[in-house]
């Protein structure tokens, strides 16, 4: 028989071992492996010394690197072992499948059609065929052996395979015949139910058969065909050549390129979202490397790992864990413990039932933290290509000398400047500091000044950034997402949202807002909540955000305000001097932000909270401020304020406490002392009443307060004090002192005497 078909399990170490043995037995003169024929050019690189799996073959469209397909390989992938076998023994190896050039073209066409329909307002019909199939059916096709294993009561296809197949040492070649038989039965059942296989599947299998025919034509006489078990029956029974040719006729094609990139076990795992992924790459690699006593070796490795983390794991623990795993397997009627039994035993024995150490085991052993390497001669990364493409399109050549670039983001004729700004912001996000943003004019303006300078070391940064995605946009989105996951500070997250908006990363803004929401819900630090509010309100009011995001931010702001209001009073009490000062600033900023929001519901909530602080708070600085905020917003009548002040400055209060209250109340502006007779009287009376000793203590505090007033106000107040005999306001307006203190301003306006006005202003 010139053609031998080996149906394998993708990423199955058991299949790999049987396959290598079978190949050595067969000694083929050509090997055809299921995989993208587009990758033929780079296939030979797999044999290079520096190539260490996990690696992935990447097929992408050079014009649109965002459209790409990865083919990951691990050391225990049967496909990888077949390729290695061929390269080692100088046997020609070819990939066979429907070329990605065609599949990507189909996908693009589909996407275009969807977009067109969406634009035309047509109803979207049920999307592509794949999504119509039941999840179980998809599972049958992707991992038919795993499916059968689960049907037989095994939780893991590997274990079932070992139990059924590896157990029988003799007659190994028969395994693949048995697999073929099973798959034929499964497929027949499907065909009998009258279900038509998806077109893509038909095309792929036709394409595989054509490649087998080509190989035959090329004169090979003993061909080994390695493909997913599901396809095996279709490659054994060859239909007429004409039928296959018809299926493949006239399919659209796009230009594609192939390269290898380093891959990680992490991204091989199903949990990373990789469809054909495996649940536990690390465990499979372990099975591949230690076929004999996997259980003992595994537990020993787990113990070593835990010891490295300074957790207790002695040899006695290993013995107990192995025994428990084996008892469990026995109780469940399994010949050998599987990963589930091992995990349960480890949790119970090593980790004392705790999940935390199990996470170390899951991450480092079950998934495994392995990063592959690729040889130097591997072609360029798509991210780099995308960057070059953008640089050409936006006419921004990388130059070694610094130059300035002024961008006008309003330019409505073409969006060139806006696109440039987005690109530069995205690169900055990705830590590729090609351009530095000059002085910003704030959010409201539409001008940006950048200094561009390309340095050779940026190439490294580009390589680094490439791991985030295939296009600059994609990478920036992924980066922002990862950053959002890491940060635990609300203020940093708000800043990130701002940056994401500047870089036009619509795809991620929603996620960031969600993250912000969950962070803010968990934060018990009211002052942190307060620090993030002004930024968000700013984004809502002034940012060039789209409507949808404003709608998303709205509820977050609602939640923030509610939480701040609930927690404000306790957060303001019992603060030390420094903390009180921080809170003071927060109080002012939050007040401003809430006034800016101008939503009645929030304002009344806020007023209620502030009133609590003003009534009942043992930090006088903040209490004074709260009273002032109430007065400024006309939530308190002047007589209320007078009552508050009277209370705060009454004889029973310690002078420094009263001083702090006055500081909080008057900070920033004291003009109302000039005009409000009652308040002035109160302060005056209080100051006159303190003892000399207390007055000396109070002096620095008062000086600090009054120095925050504008010069004119200070003069007016001092005048007021000097005329404390109770002169009425009307008299004072004509006071020569008043006129005098206007002179510096007039001089300044007229430019008569610069120096004098400056010194006056100090």
């Amino acid at each position, binding site marked *: 028989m010139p053609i031998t078909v080996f149906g394998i399990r993708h990423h199955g170490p058991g299949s790999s071992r049987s396959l290598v043995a079978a190949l050595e037995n067969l000694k083929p003169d050509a090997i055809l492996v299921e995989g993208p024929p587009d990758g033929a050019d780079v296939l030979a690189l797999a044999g290079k010394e520096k190539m260490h799996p996990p690696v992935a073959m990447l097929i992408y469209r050079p014009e649109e690197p965002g459209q790409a397909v990865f083919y990951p390989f691990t050391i225990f992938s049967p496909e990888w072992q077949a390729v290695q076998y061929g390269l080692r023994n100088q046997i020609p190896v070819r990939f066979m499948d429907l070329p990605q050039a065609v599949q990507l073209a189909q996908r693009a066409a589909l996407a275009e059609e969807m977009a067109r329909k969406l634009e035309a307002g047509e109803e979207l019909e049920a999307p592509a065929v794949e999504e119509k199939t039941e999840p179980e059916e998809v599972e049958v096709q992707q991992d038919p052996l795993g499916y059968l294993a689960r049907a037989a009561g095994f939780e893991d296809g590997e274990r079932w395979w070992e139990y059924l197949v590896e157990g029988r040492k003799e007659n190994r070649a028969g395994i693949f015949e048995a697999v073929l038989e099973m798959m034929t039965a499964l497929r027949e059942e499907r065909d009998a139910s009258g279900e038509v296989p998806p077109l893509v599947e038909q095309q792929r299998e036709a394409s595989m058969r054509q490649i087998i025919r080509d190989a035959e034509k090329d004169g090979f006489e003993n061909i080994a065909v390695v493909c997913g078990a599901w396809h095996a029956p279709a490659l054994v029974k060859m239909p007429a050549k004409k039928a296959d040719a018809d299926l493949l006729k006239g399919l659209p094609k796009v230009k594609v390129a192939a390269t290898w990139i380093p891959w990680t076990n992490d991204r091989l795992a199903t949990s990373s979202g990789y469809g054909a992924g495996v649940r536990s790459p690390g465990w499979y690699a372990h099975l591949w490397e230690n076929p004999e006593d996997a259980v003992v070796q595994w537990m020993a490795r787990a113990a070593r790992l835990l010891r490295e983390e300074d957790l*207790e794991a*002695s040899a*006695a*623990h290993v013995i*107990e864990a192995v*025994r*428990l795993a084996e*008892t*469990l397997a026995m*109780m*469940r009627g399994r010949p050998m413990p599987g990963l*589930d039994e091992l995990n*349960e*035993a480890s*949790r*119970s*024995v090593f*980790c*004392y*039932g*705790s999940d935390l150490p199990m996470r170390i085991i899951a991450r480092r052993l079950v998934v495994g933290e392995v990063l592959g390497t690729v040889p130097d001669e591997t072609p360029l990364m798509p991210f780099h290509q995308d960057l070059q493409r953008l640089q050409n399109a936006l006419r921004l050549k990388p130059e070694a000398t610094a130059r300035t670039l002024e961008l006008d983001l309003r330019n409505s004729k073409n969006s060139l400047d806006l696109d440039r700004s987005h690109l530069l912001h995205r690169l900055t996000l990705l830590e590729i500091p090609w351009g530095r943003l000059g002085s910003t004019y704030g959010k409201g303006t539409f001008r940006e000044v950048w200094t561009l300078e390309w340095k050779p070391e940026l190439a490294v940064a580009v390589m680094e950034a490439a791991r985030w995605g295939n296009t600059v946009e994609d990478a920036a989105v992924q980066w922002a997402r990862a950053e959002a996951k890491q940060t635990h500070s609300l203020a940093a997250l708000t800043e990130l949202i701002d940056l994401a908006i500047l870089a036009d990363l619509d795809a991620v803004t929603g996620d960031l807002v969600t993250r912000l*929401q*969950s962070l803010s*819900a*968990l934060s*018990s630090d009211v002052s942190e909540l307060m620090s993030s509010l002004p930024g968000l309100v700013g984004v809502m009011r002034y940012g060039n955000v789209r409507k949808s995001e404003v709608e998303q931010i709205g509820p977050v702001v609602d*939640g923030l305000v*509610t*939480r701040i209001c*609930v*927690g404000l009073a*306790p957060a303001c009490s019992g603060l030390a001097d420094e903390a009180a000062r921080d809170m003071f600033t927060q109080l002012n900023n939050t007040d401003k932000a809430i006034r800016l929001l101008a939503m009645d519901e929030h304002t009344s909530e806020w007023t209620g909270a502030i009133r609590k602080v003003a009534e009942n708070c043992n930090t006088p600085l903040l209490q004074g401020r709260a009273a002032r905020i109430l007065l400024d917003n006309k939530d308190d009548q002047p007589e209320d304020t007078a009552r508050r002040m009277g209370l705060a400055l009454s004889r029973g209060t310690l002078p420094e406490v009263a001083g702090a209250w006055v500081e909080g109340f008057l900070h920033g502006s004291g003009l109302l002392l000039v005009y409000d007779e009652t308040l002035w009287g109160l302060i005056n009376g209080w100051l006159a009443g303190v003892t000399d000793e207390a007055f000396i203590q109070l002096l620095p505090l008062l000086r600090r307060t009054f120095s925050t007033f504008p010069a004119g106000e200070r003069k007016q107040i001092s005048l007021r004090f000097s005329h404390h005999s109770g002169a009425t306001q009307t008299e004072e307006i004509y006071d020569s002192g008043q006129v005098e203190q206007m002179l510096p301003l007039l001089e300044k306006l007229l430019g008569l005497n610069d120096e004098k006005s400056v010194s006056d202003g100090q």
Partner: protein
Amino acid sequence: MSAVLRQHAEQEYAHELAELSQQDKRQRPANWKLSPWAVVTYLVGGKLDNGFEVTPKYIGSRRLMEIAVATLATDRALLLLGVPGTAKSWVSEHLAAAISGDSTMLVQGTAGTGEESIRYGWNYARLLAEGPSMQALVATPVMRAMQDGKIARLEELTRIPADVQDTLITLLSEKTMPVPELNTEVQAVKGFNMIATANDRDRGVNELSSALKRRFNTVVLPLPDTIEDEVDIVKRRVDSLGKALEIPAEKPPLEEIRRVVTIFRELRSGTTVDGKTKVKSPSGTLSSAEAISVVSNGLVMAGHFGDGNLHANDIAASLVGAVVKDPVQDRLIWLEYLETVVKERDGWKDLYRACREISE
């Protein structure tokens, strides 16, 4: 016999145990009344081949029970950990009943538990009269379990002082209890093992020494997985409690139970059930056991002071009491939860108002 307030597990479920023992054809470890498989079936419930229905004692993961039983079948002891109200003692009692047919070999651990309640004590009258002899020795439940090859139970292991805990080490690793006064020892018969329970939250009280820890396999009993499970648990227990206490009220509507369980789950997990909003968790444990007591409390309120039907205001008082354990921190968390979650939810206005009234 029916006059006792609460029967032992092996008495209450005697018929199930007998039926299982008859049907069970699998291999039994020495001195076990049932095979490991049958023990697991007794705990999680199921249908036997002859159609006999075994009621579930533990509603939750079968795998956990398998680990627990597998542990007892090896020579390691079993430590059940969990926050209060996760059925640790309940599981321990039923395990002992199913394996040894006797759940009474029980030592309650307290701060005052001494060595003599774990190893052996002396009958001093006899000791004085006859001098030291086996007859003057008072055996503890642990010693009797060793002699008879049964399961000994130790409640609240971490409350026992550390020096007393350590007497367990020899006992568990060498399966013998030396009696140096008589120059003899009591060796454990096959089938002896120990189930200890300990409270997760009190881990710091008397942390186990690592030598002792190593003698135990730990199984952590979690809070119920799904809301359906938890509603089921609460409903079953409230029904049976209501019968026992003869509360003059209608059975609680499922809807009210679901609300209480939802609030407990949300506060416990820190997210709303729709997964959209995060909330803060209060300091209390909020276990299913507490949900049970909130609902039964509400029933008593409704029965004696209300119209006999359970309403939001009957529940509110005990609900607030269960959530707010720390008067400062928890109160804030509770108010925030009320304002951000309960207030917004459709059809929860009555509960919001009732809680608000009490929390103000």
